[in-house]
């Protein structure tokens, strides 16, 4: 029953918030609901950790893997809600674009993402994945400016088309399962699929076909190159908290779906094919995004491309498989979310203070906005994978995996791209932070809601970089155990 709690809270919360016309009240309510939401999620995770997988009916199930992603959702959504409570002070009451609408949509968005992680059925998984697109499309277009509308339309269209292919992939897998003699009713429950996977092996071709469609479909959502085209637009035009949610949670949820399919297909048709595809997409995303980072002019687009790059890194980790690769990939999903949300928060402050995200229009931030600059520096160092921050650890793990399995080509590209990305970030950030201050910020100080979340994120980055808490590593191990 506990599994229904977060869903109910989110759903009711979404409609409940709409009731409050007064922005401040709406914000309070949202924070309250968010708190409940997170507690319920934490409880679930804890129970899974205590007693193993929980199942409710045919369609809801939580095991190690999903609970790992639930932690991710809980943590990031908490940060985002708190940040948003301060951020929304700049937006007025317009139709569909007022705090209460914002929160309502955010809770719908959270609802869909949580149910993605909770769903035990691949069909339901698909439905909810499409739901995330629908729920977030309006959020992307929230500002209703030219850019926002354009970005929203592209996001909606591209992702829907991509997801449609994922549906086809799901169907093909279903077909394979049915042909393998599974009961059609259970042929999409992925637990039974995992059990029956070896039997599907007799016709690996169909399974591979399914995986191709799935990886293109969900890959669109993850933002694999060349299906990434919607990603920079959406991230750049959405309100900052949403950008954080998109890149720190949504992409991971899509990645979660791919992990599920990867596990099944690896069992059915052997790991070579899916892992090769993952490696190909991972390398492509890394390289292309890494190069595009060099030539960005807009701060948030820069970060969006870096998200693409990091999704590539995670995909490489998955594609390598093995204890190191998997460990690194899972760890990286979390670390990247934290670092990226920190960066997006600072970007939000930049936009609010300078009214622009054009990097060539901003300089000398280090003097005018010391706190935000510090956050940018920490986030930047973390995102390019330097010690003592956590992404260094996960990338170290993935690299070790690559070399241990003698994937020398992948490893070389990985290392070179890291240097290129480092160059890009160093170049842009040095320009932003140093030199003569170009314009004066609206308010150089941060408000509590901002520096608290930024501080937490930065702290989390450093802690996870120096030592991974025991409980957390245990959870990661449980998640890995599911995928084996």
């Amino acid at each position, binding site marked *: 029953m506990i599994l229904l709690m977060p869903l109910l809270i989110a759903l009711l919360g979404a409609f409940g918030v709409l009731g409050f016309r007064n922005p401040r009240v709406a914000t309070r309510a949202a924070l309250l609901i968010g708190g409940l939401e997170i507690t319920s999620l934490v409880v679930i995770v804890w129970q899974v950790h205590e007693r193993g997988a929980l199942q409710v009916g045919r369609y809801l199930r939580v095991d190690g893997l999903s609970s790992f992603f639930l932690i991710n959702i809980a943590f990031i959504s908490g940060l985002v809600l708190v940040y948003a409570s301060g951020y929304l002070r700049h937006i007025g009451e317009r139709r569909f674009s007022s705090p209460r609408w914002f929160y309502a949509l955010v809770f719908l968005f959270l609802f869909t993402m949580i149910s993605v992680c909770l769903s035990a059925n691949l069909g339901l998984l698909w439905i909810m994945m499409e739901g995330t697109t629908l729920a977030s499309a309006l959020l992307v277009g929230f500002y209703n400016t030219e*850019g926002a509308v354009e970005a929203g339309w592209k996001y909606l269209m591209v992702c829907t*088309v991509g997801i449609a292919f994922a549906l086809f992939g799901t169907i093909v897998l279903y077909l394979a399962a049915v042909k393998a003699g599974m009961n059609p009713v259970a042929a999409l429950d992925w637990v039974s699929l995992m059990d029956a996977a070896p039997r599907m092996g007799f016709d690996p071709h169909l399974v591979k076909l399914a995986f191709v469609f799935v990886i293109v479909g969900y890959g669109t959502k993850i933002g694999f190159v060349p299906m990434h085209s919607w990603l920079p637009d959406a991230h750049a035009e959405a309100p900052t908290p949403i950008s954080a949610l998109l890149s720190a949670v949504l992409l991971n949820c899509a990645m979660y779906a791919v992990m599920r399919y990867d596990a099944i297909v690896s069992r059915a048709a052997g790991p070579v094919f899916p892992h090769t595809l993952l490696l190909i997409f991972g390398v492509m995303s890394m390289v292309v995004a890494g190069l595009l980072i060099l030539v960005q002019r807009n701060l948030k687009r820069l970060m969006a491309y870096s998200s693409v790059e990091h999704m590539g890194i995670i995909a490489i980790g998955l594609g390598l498989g093995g204890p190191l690769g998997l460990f690194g990939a899972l760890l990286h999903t979390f670390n990247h979310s934290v670092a990226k949300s920190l960066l997006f928060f600072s970007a939000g402050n930049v936009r609010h203070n300078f009214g622009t995200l054009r990097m060539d229009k901003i300089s000398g931030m280090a003097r005018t906005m010391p706190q935000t600059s510090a956050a940018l520096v920490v986030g930047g160092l973390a995102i390019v994978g330097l010690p003592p921050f956590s992404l260094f650890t996960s990338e170290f793990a993935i690299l070790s995996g690559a070399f241990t399995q003698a994937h020398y080509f992948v490893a070389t590209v990985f290392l070179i791209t890291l240097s290129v990305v480092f160059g890009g970030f160093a170049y842009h950030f040095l320009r932003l932070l140093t030199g003569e201050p170009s314009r004066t910020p609206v308010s150089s100080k941060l408000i509590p809601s901002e520096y608290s979340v930024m501080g937490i994120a930065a702290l989390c980055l450093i802690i996870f970089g120096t030592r991974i808490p025991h409980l957390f590593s245990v959870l990661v191990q449980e998640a890995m155990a599911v995928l084996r």
Partner: protein
Amino acid sequence: MGLVEIATGKVLSSFSVFLFLTILLLVVARRISTSVLLFSVQSAIIAAEVFATGFRERLAEAYVVGALILVIKVVAIPRAFFSLVHHLKTSHDVNASTTPTQSVFIAATMIYLAYAAVHSYGQSVHVPEDALAAAVALILTGAFLMVSRNKALMQMLGLLVLENGIFLAALTTTFGMPLVIEIGVFFDILIGLLLMGIFTFRIRDTFDHLDVSKLRRLRG
């Protein structure tokens, strides 16, 4: 052998031909309303096929699904489209970026490709080839429409056609998925269309045109 069985057999054996027909008409259609009409016809054909299959396979839920198709895809969605066109007060032209002749040629090639693809994968999927071919052809056509028609509405329509194709493929290969899932999928499509409708209005209001090929502020 009753009349119904015969009808069923006829439908099952001949519907793909009609689908190809709709495809060819769709790609040459100049007016949005025509295309919408063609889409609803297409959906109707698919619905018929669903009923037929359900009848033959004795699948109770197939009837539900068929009914859903009739309600949503044959009636509701086209109506929504018409009202959309009406309210948007936009020109009825689809602004195609390909001439009808090219479109027909392309459509023909796609149908051929569909057959080729199905033939290459066919042996692993033991289903009537032309049914699957029609499905694939629909998918390709949808893709083609989305890529070649600049009107936002036509992109939505292309998406729908693509969706039809996928649905048909599912139907022909697996006789549909569990009912709950099907309903969920329909629900998603509806919501998606609703949102797209909202966005078309927003595009119209902010850019006062509906030409998606002109939405190129965000790039690089």
